[in-house]
């Protein structure tokens, strides 16, 4: 639903006559222009997958990571303006660090996402600043509370999810995610499915090369958020590519 908010869209401190804050909506459009990131929660952990578009062959492999570590047990996958996302990752890290210093234990993910969401929301209140142009997905795993997944968008709301997607192909990704029975899957099974979804939603025509960033946190990593090890990643990417080929073949047969 796109519309022009002429006159009411110049600052975040203005409502339009139909009750919208256009600056926040424009910030969300910035997220929609970025490549896709997904996060899925399963019974023993959380897996993140990011389609990182490689704009130039001159880039060093692995540069401009879009998955961050916020404290040992929390991971963050982002979509939108990367500089804004980096700044928010620092905010999240400070929150987690202060919590640990004050209360002696890991910050619960719900609390962390609410605190960072409050921070993001603050930037939607004043004309002197602009809203953050990024959404991000936070995930963690704890022996007592299990796996948790939260998403924060530029308006400053945080939602808890079993699976969510942000970025340009979020609709297509959500459709694929809904097909999964994530509550019954383990992280090892889920990693392959996440890789497959990223490969499915990647647009070969419009965007050429991409790097797949995969990370997980769960029983398999003892509650620490880590990038997926090389062998697991290669197995996942192979599974993804093979699944795509199968679908292509079956399409040809149908013709």
């Amino acid at each position, binding site marked *: 639903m796109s519309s022009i908010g002429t006159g009411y869209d110049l600052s975040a401190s203005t409502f339009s006559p139909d009750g919208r804050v256009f600056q926040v909506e424009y910030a969300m459009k910035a997220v929609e222009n970025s490549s896709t990131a997904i996060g899925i929660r399963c019974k023993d952990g959380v897996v993140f997958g990011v389609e990182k578009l490689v704009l130039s062959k001159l880039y060093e492999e692995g540069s401009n990571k879009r998955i961050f570590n916020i404290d040992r047990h929390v991971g963050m996958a982002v979509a939108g303006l990367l500089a804004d996302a980096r700044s928010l990752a620092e905010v999240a890290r400070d929150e987690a660090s202060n919590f640990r210093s*004050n209360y*002696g234990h890991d910050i619960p993910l719900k609390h962390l996402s609410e605190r960072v969401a409050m921070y993001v929301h603050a930037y939607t209140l004043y004309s002197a600043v602009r809203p953050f142009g990024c959404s991000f997905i936070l995930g963690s795993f704890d022996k007592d509370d299990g796996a948790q997944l939260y998403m924060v968008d530029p308006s400053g709301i945080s939602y808890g999810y079993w699976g969510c997607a942000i970025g340009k192909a979020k609709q297509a990704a959500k459709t694929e995610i809904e097909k999964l029975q994530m509550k019954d899957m383990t992280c090892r099974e889920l990693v392959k499915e996440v890789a497959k979804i990223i490969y499915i939603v990647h647009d070969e025509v419009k965007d050429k090369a991409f790097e797949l960033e995969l990370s997980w946190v769960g029983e398999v990593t003892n509650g620490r958020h880590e990038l997926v090890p090389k062998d697991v990643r290669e197995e996942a990417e192979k599974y993804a590519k093979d699944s795509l080929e199968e679908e292509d073949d079956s399409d040809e047969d149908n013709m």
Partner: protein
Amino acid sequence: MEKRCLDAQFKGVSTGVSKYNALNHHFYVSSKTINKVIQVHDRIFCCMAGSLADAQAVLKTAKFHLSFHSVQMESSPQVIAAASVLKELCYKNKDELQAGFITAGWDRKKGPQIYVVSLGGMLIKQEVTIGGSGSTYIYGYVDAKYRPNMSREECLQFATNALALAMGRDNVSGGVAHLVVITESGAEHTVVPGDKLPKFHDE
């Protein structure tokens, strides 16, 4: 067998030592019935040590802070959280304060726990701990008689005995014993007058 943590008062009196004469070691006992075991949350209690004025002020702040934290978290605070709040206050203000605490309680994640926050703000976890002027007289007793995984009755008896022995020997301890038992189902605070405590051969 359930592991119970017992928080027992090991200092029986407060010494009003504003007129403490370092040369002659004169002590004035202002009260023998002050309660130094304060509840900071439903299942978390703290014993005070050091300057009671400082300890009371710190505990009041910590109690508020913890209550606010528990509302934000939408759940009861962990015992380590209570101890950490005290630790931050003691450490950050170590130049002005003379207060130490024994924090004990029960939480859903780790069950019964005891943490000691010393004067300068060190925080350590212990299974059993003693403090105060009378504690010097019962180190041997505690070291010898403590066993892990005692039952509730054994633990209570152990603590009561330890207190009685300390109160018997320390000239500035005595009066009443405050005993608090904290478990999953709640906290019970009993006050035992000195003459009702077990008797030993210390006279």
